[in-house]
């Protein structure tokens, strides 16, 4: 499954969230932002912890650490800015990460569970889940709605 030269190989950004590594398709990632100020204000949207400002744009921050690792967010230092899709429109979305990010090219295998994982890739002998950010946030929003 691993390899860099097969026709199915694509680029992924590996990120460290809590004590686990995850991947996001590189095509969905725009930058790794430095530790900038997190602006917070009252709201009741699940997962959203605040806003960072990047290049004059307001980027919502999704704190997905506890959802993915079952543990609270450590003091995160960087933000991975990716893209969230809303129908035909897109919006930047930041995820707190610890800064150890890596761009890799790898084959993936499709998985169906959990719902927010679209694929799994092998890198350095490790099996890494490729996150689908849209599904992850939608999943959590649905859960929050049911709980409320």
């Amino acid at each position, binding site marked *: 499954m691993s390899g860099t030269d097969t026709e199915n190989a694509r680029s992924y950004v590996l990120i460290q969230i809590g004590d686990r590594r995850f991947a996001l398709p590189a095509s969905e990632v725009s930058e790794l932002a430095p530790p900038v100020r997190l602006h917070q*204000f*009252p709201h009741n*949207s699940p997962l959203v912890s605040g*806003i960072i400002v990047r290049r004059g744009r*307001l980027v*919502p921050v999704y704190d997905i650490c506890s959802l993915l690792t079952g543990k609270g967010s450590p003091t995160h230092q960087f933000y991975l800015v990716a893209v969230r899709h809303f129908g035909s429109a897109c*919006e930047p979305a930041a995820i707190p990460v610890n800064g150890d990010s890596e761009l890799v090219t790898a084959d993936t295998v499709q998985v169906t569970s959990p719902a927010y994982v679209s694929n799994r890739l092998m890198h350095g002998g490790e099996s890494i889940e490729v996150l689908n950010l849209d599904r992850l946030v939608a999943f959590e*929003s649905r859960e929050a709605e049911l709980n409320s």
Partner: protein
Amino acid sequence: MKIAAHDAVKARKARKPEAVILFNVSNQLFAIAADSVQEIRSTDSLGAALEIEQQEIPKVRHTIERGHRTYYVVNACTHFGLRVVRPTLVLMLRQIRVAVLVDKIERMAELSGLHALPRAFVGTERQWYRGLACLDDQVIPVVSPMGFLTSQEFERLDGAAAEASRHNLERAVQI
């Protein structure tokens, strides 16, 4: 790929600067359009506030009469889900029968643009805020005066207020 391009464009569009009042509620800074505020008063000067008996809308406990209109007093801490602190000021809004209890006024400012609330925000904050402003390296929610009470809440409060005044009248007749 268009990444929220419309948000940036909206904020950049040349607009007449908008005067806002920056106010504080439970250590959180908010902005409100200056022309939507009719009057700012100290809570000490609101001796004539009447208590309204209703449990459905806990953020409203009192009414104030101004110019033959009944204003509902909304506690901004409760409205925004913040830790309740003792308010010192009340903002009487202009086009809506709402008075808002706040902690303090920070200052006036001018906004040259307003960012739309990102789509990530899906809760009641979409009614609370007109958008977000960037001012002195701070992102500040700009509140919507119409977001303090919904039309259904007004209906319920009007019902409760009418009931209370009928009650008071009956009591006065008995005395």
